[in-house]
């Protein structure tokens, strides 16, 4: 076999190695662009849609518009995070109690060193929302005062858990 063929084969191998690398990287490019990072913020349309859209599959046209706009007296309450890493998150309050803490099973999972695993609970008692400290280490503050047990959670009052501040808001969002 001549010297020239050998050199050509050598360069061909290097070329093939690089083509392999490039093909692999092209495959990966697809993987990179197939992923989106969604920043959690109140302006994100994704988050806005979710609580309002109701059960998936129900077509919007089928819902009576009047049923959406409810009487202000019996509006749903929403819990809004006003400070901390989850700022902008809002949770519509229903009949089920809401657990706040670092544990993954909580409704509102806080990524906060100063919050306990199961830190506080927000629940409804006789037409009134209550916030209850669940024996947390660093305490729950309602309007700047540390609470013991359950106290009423009035709209506008600020509940502070670690670095997170939560407010109750009433009325149509």
């Amino acid at each position, binding site marked *: 076999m001549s010297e020239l063929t050998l050199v050509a084969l050598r360069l061909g191998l*290097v070329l093939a190695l690089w083509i392999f690398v490039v093909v692999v990287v092209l495959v990966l490019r697809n993987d990179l662009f197939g992923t989106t990072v*969604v920043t959690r913020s109140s302006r994100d349309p994704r988050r806005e849609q979710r609580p309002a859209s109701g059960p998936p599959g129900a077509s919007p046209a089928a819902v009576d518009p009047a049923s959406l706009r409810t009487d202000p007296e019996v509006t749903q309450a929403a819990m809004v995070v006003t400070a901390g890493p989850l700022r902008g998150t809002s949770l519509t309050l229903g009949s089920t109690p809401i657990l706040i803490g670092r544990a993954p099973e909580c409704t509102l999972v806080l990524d906060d060193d100063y919050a306990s695993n199961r830190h506080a609970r927000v629940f409804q008692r006789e037409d009134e929302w209550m916030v209850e400290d669940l024996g947390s280490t660093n305490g729950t503050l309602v309007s700047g005062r540390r609470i013991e047990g359950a106290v009423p959670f009035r709209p506008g009052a600020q509940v502070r858990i670690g670095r997170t501040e939560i407010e109750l808001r009433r009325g149509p969002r």
Partner: protein
Amino acid sequence: MATIVSYTARPRRLLQALLLLFAVAVGVGAYALVGLGRFEELPANLLELGVGALVLVLVLQIAVMWRAPYADPVILPVVVLLNLLGVAMIESVHAANSIFGLRGSASADRQMLWSVVGVALCVALVVLLRDHRRLRRYTWISAVVGGVLLLMPLLPVIGDSRNGSKIWINIAGFSFQPAELAKIAFAVFFAGYLVSRRDTLALAGPKVLGIHLPRWSDFGPILVAWGFAMAVLVFQTDLGTSLMFFGLFVVMLYVATDRLSWLVIGAVMFLPPAIFAATQMSHVRTRITCWLDPLSSANYGSCEQISQGLFGLASGGLIGTGLGEGRPDMVPHAESDFIFSSFAEEMGMVGAFALLLLYLVLVQRAIRAAVGISDGFGTLLAGGLGFVMALQVFVVVGGVTRVIPLTGLTLPFLAAGGSSLVCNWIIAGILVRLSDAARRPAARQVDGAGPAPAPRPAQEVRS
């Protein structure tokens, strides 16, 4: 705070089949070129190698299609290519040794045999391990297994000391580096342990110099890991293995807790033992001297390996001498510890960078699987295995190219050595399983729709 949503859920099995064939073509082509360059004829067992590689690739493809249809299409082709390039390089070194007779080295047949064993174990793992979370049941068992494996070289009869490090065992003529297998066992143990403890380990304690330290009472686990790494360092006198285990623990701790302070603490904790090794152990001291100044006339004799490796890298130049046309036999252990310099000599800088890119892709796939997977155990396992592979490549290539002092780790899939090759194939199998779990559409969490719909009974593995 951000949520990552992945939209790709295509199996892409055809793509993997094509890539596997491409990898076999390049690898077998490299083997053929070694024969052409060295003896000006095709190697006698080229057909056997080609058919064998095709059969193994077919088995891998079928196993993945059958049991892990959503696995990453890139992992296995890259691994197959690395393995075949390693076989070609080992054959080149062996042929050079048989011509010039400077020193002997094993032929590539042994490495091919170990490749078959490795592929068989990888296939068995993909077929038998249906759900990676099952590994979590063996958290503490794997801790014991890993510890025993790591301490085996210290046993009197089977232990074996080479180049000042007691990291080998000898059973019935087969020598084995149990630390390679212990690496997998410890990755499983750390993942299982940290996933249940990470909430407490992430709590913030006192603030020192601008970083939040963990609470003092949470320093227990890292101290135990440190003590274990120290035991390895003192009794087996091997800085590389010690660094690998401690680094694995610290990085998995970082992945689990998302606290940068653990990385800083780990780095600070490893400084005293590194200094101790550098000043108290003679073979480590030699290696530091060879790192700083290998080419001076005073050190030339004792640093023959690293200086010959540097000459090899230099004579390779940009495009290399060509496979089978260099003199890798001038370097001691050119087929194992210094296979990177052999490869860079014959394939040149162009080839060496392609090789590094292949490793980069492999590590990136492991970390991508870690990001995509929905359970904490899988995230930690994939992240840990990807990191340990990256650390090995860095330590070996850095040691050969004089970025850091040389330590005794192996280049995954490439270096001659059965234990390293087989264990890395097992890691490849685990990564295939993990990437399948990460990319499977049913396992993906629906963004924010409350608790994710559990596709499989997820509770069975909670311990």
